[in-house]
């Protein structure tokens, strides 16, 4: 595929648990083209989150290769990989993981901490992102003062703050009311169309599946296109 941003080659991952090893992902190969939306659909426990973490350079697979536009994150040291992540990827976690003592605005700007110079990562840009997810009125609130939908949107704004080429979103519309979900989906589409970003999103949400360029099904750790 031309302009491939992320390529997973025969990736496998097992977790060690009390009752033995659990294979969360098996020999999965996946390529994400530039500017595309790939939806990852599958039942709970099928391995969606595991795949996202591996693709995002956060979880080293037991086997297989991951490439980002020519870079191989798992061949780097932990710090080298962290730096590459800060230049390449953005995450929307299923549990948001906002930092509880930072305001909405500060949470959005957290990815800037990894960089020595601000560049485009200005407070103005953070304000802009918050306006885009309709949270301009919440900038100085703490996460605990927000609804679930609002937190999810803060998480999205934060994921976009570094202007990543690859965005990984884990069920970003789960637990959201229709209106919030609509805002989130809109912003994700804008990200791929206007900003030429690449999105890999785990979801069962039909509205989100509808805007995807491609839907990849996953079941018991195995991918089916």
């Amino acid at each position, binding site marked *: 595929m031309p302009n491939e941003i992320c390529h997973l080659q025969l990736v496998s991952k097992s977790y060690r648990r009390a009752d033995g090893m659990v294979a969360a992902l098996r020999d999965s190969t996946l390529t994400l083209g530039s500017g595309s939306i790939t939806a990852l659909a599958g039942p709970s426990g099928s391995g969606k989150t595991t795949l996202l973490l591996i693709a995002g350079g956060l*979880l080293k697979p037991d086997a297989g290769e991951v490439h980002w536009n020519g870079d191989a994150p798992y061949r780097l040291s932990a710090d080298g990989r962290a730096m590459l992540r*800060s230049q390449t990827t953005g995450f929307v976690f299923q549990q948001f993981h906002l930092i509880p003592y930072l305001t909405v605005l500060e949470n959005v700007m957290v990815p800037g901490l990894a960089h020595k110079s601000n560049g485009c990562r200005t407070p103005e840009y953070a304000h802009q992102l918050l306006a885009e997810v309709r949270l301009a009125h919440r900038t100085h609130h703490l996460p605990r003062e927000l609804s679930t939908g609002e937190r999810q949107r803060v998480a999205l704004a934060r994921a976009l703050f570094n202007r990543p080429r690859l965005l990984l979103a884990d069920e970003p519309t789960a637990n959201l009311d229709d209106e919030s979900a609509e805002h989130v989906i809109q912003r994700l589409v804008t990200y791929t169309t206007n900003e030429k970003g690449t999105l890999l999103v785990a979801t069962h949400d039909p509205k989100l599946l509808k805007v995807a360029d491609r839907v990849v099904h996953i079941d018991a750790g195995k991918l089916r296109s």
Partner: protein
Amino acid sequence: MNGLQLVTKEIRLRRTNFILSTLAVAVAVAVGLLALWQLRIHEHQTREYLAGQRTQLEEEMKKLEDDYRKITKELGYNLVLLPAKQDLAAYYAGHAMRMTMPQEYVTRLANTNLMTVQHLLPIVEQQTTWPEQGDQSIVLVGTQGEVSAATGNQHQKGPILPAVAKEHLVIGYRLAVDGDLQPNKRVMFRGREFTIAKALPERGTKEDVTVWAALDEAQELLGCPQQLHAMMALKCHCEGNDLAAIRASVAQVLPDVQVLEIADKSHARGRARDRAHAAAEAALAEEAQRRADLQLQRESLASWLIPAVWCSAAAIVGVLALLNVRERFSEIGVLRAFGLRAGQVLRLVLARGLLVGILGAGLGLFAALGACWLYDGAVPLQTIAVSPTARQEGLLLMAAAPILTMLVAWPPALLATQRDPAAVLGQE
């Protein structure tokens, strides 16, 4: 937003943990400072006290010295004057005195202006025999009693030895016993008749075999009229009142006479003064020793108290730091996910430890100063302020606190950086 803001905001959210850690450090610093400072204060007080005692002692000694001088002055010097040629070894051994000087010396000395003499006793003294008592060996002493000194001698007192009356004898104990001689008995002595005036009680000295007679009769008996073997000058005073001056004065009037001083009460007083001085010195040394022992005791107390308190504080701060890091796994995972390097995360945790240390040290210092103030106002604070050791120890503890809190924050910080972010971020 920078790292420091991240740290301070985190602290504001999780105050309890931070406050407890800071208090633990503050207590350790305060206890450490107070334990060390009380040593310095005690040291200082000891120095002051001993210095005060020493000054007092010296003042008292000066006063004693003064009294001694006054007493000496009052008593004057008691002298024995001998002919210059008299062999001193023979004199001290109690042998017969062969050399004589003219009796006229007595009046010369009495009339001198250079010095005052309260009592003058001209003496002849010779070892001889008492033929009428079976040639018993005796010492014959002739005394005139006192010769009145020159004018201006107001405080003149009675003679020390009452003069022996003419044709009378005073005899020593042994002679009285051996010759069965009692007072009023008439007795022949070297061809002349005398009456016994007095028989002295036993003394165990030369006096037990001594016969005292009137000076001129003794001179005749010994064949040395108008001659003296010795002269006692009692309570001699002169300008400046020192022995050298008195000797010089005597030499001026009586050139061929040697002057000996008779040790007496004033010497005893001098010795008493020396003894008092030695006793006071000993008491002072004992007090110094007692205080040094106390200081040692306090030092040994501090030497285990400070490490014990600091170890406890370190344990508390370490456990609290660990709890804090465990609470922060999720946010640390997020920071790592968004590209913060391990070193940056480490610094965030250590910075928190550093703040605990700095704030705790400041609070501890404040508490220690406050405790000192409550205990005794400004006095101990001034002592601390002027003691370089106390200041250095204070600085050392203040510097040690943040270093210690950073050290105990290190293992939790490492744990934070090594924890796999995916483990917490993947949770549903």
